[in-house]
C-alpha cells in the first residue's frame, strides 16, 4: 500500500509541471498587465514611466523563457513568487485564504453527505415511490439551479425574512456565518450524491449475489449493511472525491456572493488585476488539492473493496 501511495504521489509531479507550464503560457499571452489594470478604472492617466518601473521591479522586462525558468526553479523550492499587488509572498497570501475555502468546502460536503446520501439510499430502497420521485425531482432541481441565484434566495429567506443568520461575511469565523454559504455550495453536490447513491444502490440490488442472499433468508438490514452499502460505496466515494475537488473551484461564486475570504475571491481579484504570481499560485494549489483528493479516493478504493488491486 505504501508503494502504491508513493507511486501515486510521484505521478502527480508531471501533472503539476504540465499545469504550471499551461498557466504560465496562458498568462504570458493574454493581453493586459498589472500596469494596465492599475488604470482600468479610469481614475488616472496611463503612466509610461510607471509601467517601465513596474516591469523592471517585477522582472517582466526579461524574456519569457528566462521568466519561466525562474518560475520553475522557484517552484522546485516551494517558492510561488511575490504578489505584484501586495508585494507579499504568494504562499503567505494563499496561506491566509486556503483555510476559509477548505472550511467552506468541508462544510458543504458535510451538507451534501448528511442529506444526499440518506435520500439517495431511501429512494433506491423504494424505487417508484413518492419519496423516490420527490428526491429525484429535488436532485434535478438542485443540479440545475445556479448557485448565485440560490445564494440570493437563501439570503432573503434566512437573513432578511427570518432573521436567523447573517447574510454575508466571515464574522469571527464561527458557524453562524458558515451556514448559508455552505448550504448554497452544498446543494449541487448533495443532488448529485443523491442521484449517484440511488443509482449505485439500485445497481447492487439487482445483482445475483443479492438475490442469492435474499433467497437464503438474509434480513434486509443485514443485506443492506453488509452487501449493498459496501458495494455501492465505491461509486459513491468516487463521486464524493470528484465533487470535493470541483467544489474548491466552484466556491469562487459563493465566496464572492457571501464576501467569504477564501482562495476563490483572491483568485478573481488577481485575474482582474493581472497579479500573475497569485493567479498561478492559487490555480496550482487548487490543482494540487484536486490531485491529493483523487489519490486519497484511490487509496480508499483498496480499503473498501479488496478485489481492487493496486499491484
Amino acid at each position, binding site marked *: 500500500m505504501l508503494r502504491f501511495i508513493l507511486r501515486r504521489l510521484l505521478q502527480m509531479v508531471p501533472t503539476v509541471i504540465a499545469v504550471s507550464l499551461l498557466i504560465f503560457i496562458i498568462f504570458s499571452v493574454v*493581453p*493586459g*498587465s498589472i500596469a*494596465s*489594470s*492599475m*488604470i*482600468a*478604472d*479610469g*481614475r*488616472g*492617466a*496611463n*503612466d*509610461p514611466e*510607471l509601467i517601465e*518601473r*513596474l516591469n*523592471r*521591479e517585477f522582472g517582466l522586462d526579461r524574456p519569457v523563457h528566462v521568466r519561466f525558468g525562474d518560475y520553475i526553479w522557484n517552484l522546485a523550492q516551494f517558492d510561488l513568487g511575490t504578489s505584484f*499587488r*501586495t*508585494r*507579499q509572498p504568494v504562499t503567505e*497570501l494563499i496561506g*491566509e*485564504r486556503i483555510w*476559509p475555502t477548505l472550511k467552506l468546502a468541508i462544510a458543504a460536503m458535510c451538507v451534501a453527505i448528511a442529506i444526499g446520501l440518506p435520500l439517495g439510499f431511501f429512494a433506491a430502497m423504494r424505487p417508484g415511490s413518492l419519496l423516490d420521485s420527490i428526491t429525484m425531482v429535488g436532485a434535478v432541481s438542485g443540479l440545475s439551479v445556479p448557485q448565485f441565484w440560490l445564494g*440570493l434566495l437563501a*439570503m*432573503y429567506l434566512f*437573513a*432578511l425574512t427570518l*432573521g436567523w443568520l*447573517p*447574510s*454575508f*461575511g*466571515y464574522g469571527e469565523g464561527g458557524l453562524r456565518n458558515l451556514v448559508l454559504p455552505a448550504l448554497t455550495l452544498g446543494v449541487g453536490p448533495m443532488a448529485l450524491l443523491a442521484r449517484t447513491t440511488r443509482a449505485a444502490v439500485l445497481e447492487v440490488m439487482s445483482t445475483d449475489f443479492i438475490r442469492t442472499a435474499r433467497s437464503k433468508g438474509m434480513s434486509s438490514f443485514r443485506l443492506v449493511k453488509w452487501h449493498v452499502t459496501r458495494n455501492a460505496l465505491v461509486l459513491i466515494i468516487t463521486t464524493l472525491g470528484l465533487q470535493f475537488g470541483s467544489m474548491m473551484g466552484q466556491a469562487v461564486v459563493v*465566496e*464572492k*456572493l*457571501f*464576501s*467569504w*475570504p*477564501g482562495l476563490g*475571491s*483572491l483568485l*478573481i*481579484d488577481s485575474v*482582474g*488585476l*493581472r497579479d500573475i504570481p497569485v493567479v498561478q499560485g492559487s490555480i496550482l494549489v487548487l490543482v494540487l488539492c484536486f490531485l491529493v483528493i483523487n489519490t486519497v479516493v484511490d487509496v480508499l478504493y483498496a480499503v473498501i473493496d479488496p478485489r481492487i488491486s493496486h499491484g
Partner: protein
Amino acid sequence: MAGRSAFALALAAFLLAAGASSARADEPRQGGTLNYVAPYGSSFSSLDIHASAQIQDAIWSKAIHKPLYDWDADANQPVLALATDVAASDDGLVYTYKLRQDVYFHNGKQMTADDIIWTYTRIMDPQKAYPSARFIRYIKGAAEYSEGKAEAISGLKKIDDFTLEITFTDPMDPAYLLMRNVTSIYPKDEGNSEEFLKHPIGVGPYKFAEYVPGSRLTVERWEKYFDSGKPYLDKVNIMIMGDASARDVAFRNKEIDVSVLGPAQYVAYKADPEMSKYILEVPEVFTRFVGFNLDYEPFKDKRVRQAINYAIDSDLIIKRLAKDKAYRATSWLPISSPAYDKDAKPYPYDPEKAKELLKEAGYAEGFEFELTATQNESWGLTIVEAIIPMLAKVGITVKAKPVESSVLSEVVPAGDFQAFMWSYTSGPDPLTALLNFHSETPQSSGNYEKFNNPDYDKLIDAAKQARNEDEKNELLRQANNLLQEEAPMWFFNYNKAVIAYQPWLHGAQPNSMEIALQSYEKIWFDESAPSR
C-alpha cells in the same frame, strides 16, 4: 480660492436642489460602531497605501491615514489637513507649510517635517515602482532621486520641525497632488518594517485594530486625533462586499450602515418611500464617453464627429439603460468642476442634422468603425448595443469589439483602436483634466484621441500661467467649450454616484471625487442606532 468658494456654494445649492443634503440639525453624538462597505472587489490589495492604485484601498486608508491636504467633500475643494498655513512664492514654485503641532501617529509619536520628507522620499524609492510616485514627481529633484541620480529630493527642505518648504517643478496648485490618499504620511523609518505593513500606523482618526484578509478591516477611535472632538464613532468595520445584490440584502437587513448603489438598486430605493429619504447622490468627476481615434480617416473630419453626437439619443439611453443614474454630459468637464459651464447645452438628438453633416463631410453613404468596449453595465457593451441602431439610421455601421477592462486600458494608450468607450476621471482639478487634450500630451499619457488644436493649446497654456483662480477657470471653461465644438468624442454622461445610508447615520458627505470615500471622522450615529 475665490473661484473655488463660489463654486462650492453653487455645488451646495445644486445638492440641496437634488434633495441630497446630508445636513441635520441634531448635535453629533459620540459612540457606536459603523459597518461600512468596500464595494470594489473581493479584497484589499495592500495595507501599504503608497503601493496601491486601487480605490478599494483608499476606503480603508481614509480611516487610518491622512495626507498633507485633504479633500473637503462638503466644500468640494482641497483643504490643508496636516498644516495650519501655507505660503506660496510669487513664481508659484515654492510652498512653505506651517505644520500642525498636535498631530500624533497611532504609536504616540508626534508628526514633524521629517516624517513628511521621509514619506515623499519613500514613495520615490528608486528600487520600487509605487503608483503614488506620479503625484510626488512634481516636486523638484524627485525624478532625479527616483532615477538614482541624486541622494535626496532637493525640493524638500526642513526649515524646522514644524516648517517645511517644498519646491515644485512647475507653477501649480499642489493641493490636488498632495491630497491623494496614496501620499499619506507615514512615521519616519517605521514605514518600511514588516510589522508596519501588517499593522499600518497613520495620523488619521482611527487606528488599525484587525484585518481579516478578504473579509473586513476594523479600526478603533484614535484618542489623540488632531481634530478635537472627532471622530465620533468608537469603531468602524470596513466590510469587503463586491456583490451589489448581496449588499442590497445586507443593507435591508441592517447589517451594514451604508451601501453604494448600482442602477438596479437606485431605481428600487428611489421608489421606496422610506428608503428614498436616506439616499445621497452626487455628480462624480467621471465622464463616460466614446473616444475617436483621430488618425482614423473618417474621424479626421470634425463634422463626422459632431454627426455622431447628433445621431445618438443620449437622454434616452440615460433614462432607459442608466436608469437615470447619470447626468447628461455637455463636454469633458463634469458638473462638479469649477470650470464647468452651466450655460452650455449638450448636442441635441437630431439625426437629420447628423445626415447633413455626414453628407458635407463626404460620407453620405456612411462608413464603418470598430468600437472597443468592456462589459461594464454603465459604460460598456450594453450602451454600445443601444447606439448601434441609432448610428445605423444615419448610415454608420458600428462593430462592437468586446475586451476586458485591463485590456481596454492597454490598447487605448497604445492607440490600438478606432473608437473606444470608457469612464474616465475628469476632475477634480480642471487643468489636469483638460491637459489630457493638449497636443504635447502623448497618446500614451492621456491624449488617447490624439487631439491637436492650436487654439485649445493656447487656452490651456494661458490657464497654466494664470495666478488668479477666476481667470484660470474662465480660460478652462473656454477650452472645455472648444472641446465640445471639436467633439473628439461622443459626450455621453457624468456619473451620478449614489449611496444609501441607514436613518440613524448622520454626516455622510457628497464626495464628488468618489462617493465611497467618506471622511469617517465626520460620521455619527443618533440614539436609534442598533448596539453592536
